[in-house]
């Protein structure tokens, strides 16, 4: 039978998840098996890398149980990728900033106590973990957080499963998106980019072929103090969010992982990165993106559908 678009919505990885798959309605058993396979892969990654589960690999790492012990291939691959992003971002993309959540409280409109923040800063710094490509060692007081990559990686994993089954679908994990193929009739998928200040409306809709899309914005979680917005993206050098950076950015890439990392780096950079403006940096690496700055000026290389 001709495929129809079947949707599944559920919660995973701390947020809303949506699977849109073109499936043959005459094969309910096979379709359910596929959905189960996708959900169990999400569950596997969550159980492995969630800092909220005390038995997760990440929690074990953070307790020091994996110091100087060779980690598995998947974790090594992710950490090597994070290491690469650390270098590419001029040390801004840092998986050890998670401990700052102890002093940044987004439910109140207060900046963190500078003394408390100052005491945490020495425990931040990816190079201090001495990553060798196979093992690392966590110093007391430090914490590793895969939050910057695991959701995007999960999107890519689910897309790989869809590709292996020959299914065209779109995976959306709280705004991190991946597609395995064009829709039937070779039509692209349509994705809306949220307006950073009027968050219930779309700034633009984009055509997505095969690949990943990820975005970041200062509207996702923030506090406002004395008329200034402080977002949830914290820099490892200051302990504060970037000043005068972008309001939002959406990036397209072959994988959601790459799209997400580039988006995060562009947001953390503030106005400049590697002695260039963020816009020049993005244009130089030649990746499709759409960005909004603090004056709500929209720019970027993606063609928009208005």
């Amino acid at each position, binding site marked *: 039978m001709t495929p129809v678009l079947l949707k599944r919505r559920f919660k995973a990885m701390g947020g809303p998840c949506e699977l849109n798959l073109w499936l043959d309605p005459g094969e309910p058993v096979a379709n359910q098996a596929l959905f189960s396979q996708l959900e169990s892969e999400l569950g596997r990654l969550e159980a492995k890398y969630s800092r909220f589960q005390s038995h997760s690999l990440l929690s074990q790492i953070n307790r020091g149980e994996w110091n100087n012990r060779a980690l598995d291939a998947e974790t090594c691959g992710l950490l090597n*990728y994070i290491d690469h992003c650390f270098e590419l971002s001029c040390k801004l993309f840092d998986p050890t900033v998670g401990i700052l959540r102890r002093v940044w409280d987004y439910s109140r409109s207060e900046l963190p106590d500078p003394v408390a923040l100052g005491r945490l800063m020495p425990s931040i710094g990816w190079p201090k973990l001495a990553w060798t490509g196979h093992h690392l060692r966590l110093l007391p007081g430090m914490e590793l957080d895969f939050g910057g990559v695991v959701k995007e990686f999960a999107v890519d994993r689910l897309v790989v499963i869809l590709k292996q*089954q020959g299914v065209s679908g779109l995976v959306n994990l709280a705004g991190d998106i991946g597609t395995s193929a064009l829709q039937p009739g070779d039509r692209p998928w349509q994705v809306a980019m949220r307006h950073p200040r009027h968050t219930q409306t779309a700034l633009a809709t984009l055509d997505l072929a095969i690949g990943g899309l990820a975005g970041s914005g200062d509207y996702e979680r923030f506090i406002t103090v004395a008329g200034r917005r402080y977002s949830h993206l914290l820099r490892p050098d200051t302990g504060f969010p970037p000043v005068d950076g972008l309001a939002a950015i959406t990036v397209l890439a072959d994988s959601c992982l790459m799209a997400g990392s580039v988006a995060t780096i562009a947001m953390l950079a503030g106005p400049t990165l590697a002695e260039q403006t963020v816009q020049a940096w993005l244009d130089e690496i030649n990746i499709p993106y759409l960005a909004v700055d603090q004056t709500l000026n929209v720019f970027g290389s993606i063609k928009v559908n208005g």
Partner: protein
Amino acid sequence: MNQKLKLLAQSAFAIPGMIATAHAAGPAATEAAYRYSYYSEDDSPAARDDSGGAQDRYKIQVHQFHLLTPLTDKLALTVEGSYETMAGASPVYTYVPAGEDTVYTHFSGASQEQRYDLNVSGRVYGSTSDLGVGAYVSVERDYLAVSGSVDGSIALNDQMTTVSGGVSGGYDLIEPTSAYEAGSTAQAANEPARFGASGQSKWQVSVFEGVGQIIDMNTAVQANLAFTYKNGYLSDPYRDCPHAENVPCDIRPSTRAIGILGLGLRKFLPSLNGALHADYRLFVDTWDVASHTVDVDYYQNWAPNWRLFTANDIKFQLSPGIRYYLQSSGYFYEVPDLNDSIGGQVYNTDTSRYYSSDPRLAQYGAIALKTRLRVDFRQFSWVGALERYVANPEFGFNSSEIPGLPTFWRFTTGLDYRF
């Protein structure tokens, strides 16, 4: 996409599971390779040479070429060829001369030969199966060999098990050199083997079956069985010897049936970033030759994390290995003792029909130590390899002397290119 982004993409796709690899798709890239090898046998001991001097034994230089091209995403073509030059003396016959009590070897005069060969094959890939067809030809001044083969494989059981099989057939034509003089009674008398081998041929048929099994994400094993049947002129035409009139020098049965069992293990050791290979081959045939071969190799990877190396994809791989070979003698192998000649008869009666003193049919063992180094640089790889091979009757639990066994060094260097 600029270089920075390309490198980031490589890091992303190096994470296991980021690339869909379900289908046993055909190869994606074209690869070309060249190897130069130099093989040199140790000089034979003067004390065991009936000419009284040490012989400059065999030296071979080989140039090998390989090209694999995907023609479509389901069809690939492979072309391989080699050019070989050979020079040096080789053992012709082994015996105990009259008046001596030790074994001597007689060597042929040094010769210079060349050999060319070419192998062309095509393979079609399905989602869980493949089928290949190949043709092969080898040409030397005195020898022409042609063969063809068909083989295929199917992946079952969630692609955890692979079953493969194939058949092949070959035909060889022998035209021993030092010009054949048709109708020459002198040559027929003095070089009976060479004279008799002119225009001789042999054919062979082979069938094999194999099963491969993935045990876990780091381990795979394989077992295979092969049967070969050969028919025709299987003797060695260069082994004319002057022991006595009507003394055959190398006359082997005209048929040979062979059975081979092979077992293999490949295990990756993630904490060491290395792979262990172990292979065993059991060989039995109707000439009573039985052999065991054990091959163990370890491939150690090293990819330094410094900027220059990661930016250019520079990686190293060192792989030492050891091979142990043990064979029993063919039933018609004998080293004649000319002191025992009774009434012109120099052999035991059960070798009067077939006979050979070729050291390759004796009971002996051989140990080879080898090491290989591979350096990857972007799309290129340089390889270098060194091997030391020693064949010795004591390695085969044989207390006799076999002076003709080879001991050699082999050196290889080459380049691979993927595009």
